[in-house]
């Protein structure tokens, strides 16, 4: 433009146009960020798929895999149908508030040129839900009916955890407004809830045939430990999408905040995610010297510091993760001695670790202020919240699985368990050219039970 024609009005118009362009690009950046977080989170499911198929005996490998694939397929639509509504409707407890915009017949729940947030946040939350539903999946391999698993995982992934999310993550969530709850990386709302839901299911489901002989736990060795280890590492990769999705990318001058609107940044998350990952591996390795537990330790470490990712000093996060590596192994042994057959240690890795992680924020970061009128973080508030998360997972998990058991719909028949679910239900073999028989007896010592194996 010719300088001679510049007027105050024309400059204001140019400024407004640039401001509009900037805001559009900022909104697009928000969408781009959560789009890729969601995509990276799918790696968690690729990881669960490999990890659980590997952890099964070969006669059940495909049944374990089909569970994972179908879990994604049912949680995504059900999260669209009612999960997102639950998050928006139940921050105050069990009485819903008006959240009609989150219902599937709302014009907000679809392509909308004036809304560059709802779809991408829904997608990230739907994948959080799918992750939560998949935590149950590994623990119950080799004996649960696929139909029963899908019913349970829909409840867990599209209803129960997101109710916990409404209470503990929503800006009006009562755990935040009453207790100052702090759980930025979902140690409680995802992992503790899913882990204790799983415990409730395992009590009713029972152990795999041959797991306990005369009350002594036996090793049922994974048919492919390498596949399991690679799967676990893929889950760790996916965690970066998961934890990235937990941080809020704000427009304007605000920058990054936690889901509680307190200031933070990705650097804080980077420090403590990686330090927790490393610490958990070390703790579990020293506690077991077992490859499966060593790699699971990476998960333990991240989950153990996830609730306070924004607050911990990295060295403290590392120490917490090492200690929780030991503690998770101890808890897994504790459960196994009580006859609970958790095939992948999900209750210890997710439930127990998530539960303690929430309390540890109260121990180490108590007194940290929240925004607005919300109370500060406290030991008592975190402890009460952790108990609520555990109960919110355990009670429906136990109740619903008990109901399925009463209708003889929870567990496959013994004959199917003997033959393998792949052959009976899927009519497929994972390795058709292999002649390796599936076997319970193993010469691999059970490092958790610390006893010599016994044949059957």
């Amino acid at each position, binding site marked *: 433009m010719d300088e001679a024609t510049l007027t105050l009005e024309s400059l204001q118009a140019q400024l407004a146009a640039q401001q509009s362009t900037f805001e559009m690009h900022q909104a697009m950046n928000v969408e781009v960020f959560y789009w890729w977080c969601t995509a990276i989170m799918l790696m968690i499911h690729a990881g669960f798929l490999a990890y659980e198929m590997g952890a099964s005996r070969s006669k059940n490998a495909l049944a374990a895999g089909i569970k994972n694939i*179908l879990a994604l*397929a*049912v949680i995504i*639509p*059900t999260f*669209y*149908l009612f999960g997102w509504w639950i998050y928006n409707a139940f921050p105050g407890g069990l009485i819903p508030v008006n959240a009609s915009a989150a219902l*599937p*017949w*709302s*014009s*907000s*729940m*679809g*392509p*909308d*040129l*004036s*809304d560059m947030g709802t779809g991408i946040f829904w997608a990230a939350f739907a994948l959080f839900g799918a992750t939560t539903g998949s935590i149950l999946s590994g623990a119950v391999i080799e004996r649960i*009916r*696929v*139909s029963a698993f*899908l*019913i349970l995982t*829909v409840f867990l992934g599209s209803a129960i955890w997101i109710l916990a999310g409404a209470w503990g993550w929503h800006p009006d969530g009562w755990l935040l407004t009453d207790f100052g709850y702090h759980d930025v990386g979902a140690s409680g709302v995802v992992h503790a809830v899913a882990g204790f839901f799983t415990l409730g299911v395992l009590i009713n489901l029972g152990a795999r045939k041959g797991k306990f002989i005369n009350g002594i736990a036996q090793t049922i060795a994974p048919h492919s430990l390498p596949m399991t280890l690679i799967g676990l590492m893929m889950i760790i990769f996916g965690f970066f999408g998961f934890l990235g999705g937990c941080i809020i990318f704000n427009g304007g001058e605000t920058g990054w905040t936690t889901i509680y609107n307190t200031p933070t940044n990705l650097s804080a998350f980077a420090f403590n995610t990686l330090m927790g990952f490393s610490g958990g591996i070390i703790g579990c390795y020293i506690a077991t010297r077992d490859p499966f537990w060593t790699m699971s330790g990476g998960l333990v470490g991240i989950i153990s510091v996830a609730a306070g990712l924004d607050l911990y000093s990295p060295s403290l996060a590392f120490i917490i993760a090492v200690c929780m590596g030991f503690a998770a192994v101890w808890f897994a042994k504790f459960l196994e001695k009580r006859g609970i057959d958790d095939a992948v240690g999900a209750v210890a890795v997710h439930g127990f670790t998530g539960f303690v992680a929430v309390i540890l924020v109260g121990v180490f970061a108590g007194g940290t202020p929240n925004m607005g009128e919300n109370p500060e973080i406290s030991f008592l508030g975190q402890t009460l919240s952790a108990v609520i998360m555990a109960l919110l997972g355990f009670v429906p998990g136990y109740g619903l699985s008990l109901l399925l058991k009463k209708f003889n*719909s929870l567990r*496959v*028949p013994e*004959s*199917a368990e003997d*033959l393998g679910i792949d052959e*009976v*239900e899927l009519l497929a073999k994972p390795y058709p050219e292999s002649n390796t028989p599936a076997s319970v007896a193993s010469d691999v010592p059970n490092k958790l039970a610390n006893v010599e194996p016994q044949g059957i």
Partner: protein
Amino acid sequence: MGTSITTWENATAYFTFADSPVMLGLFAIGAAGIVVGLIASIIRHENEAFKKHK
């Protein structure tokens, strides 16, 4: 037949049937029915498969 806009000028929610909550509700019921139907079909398949291998 389901378009909800006649122009892109000032368009907001532009997806099919966005202006018809009744139709969106029917689609939601249909989607829910598919999920329920999937699980029901798996239950039936499991019962048949387990009976064959008794």
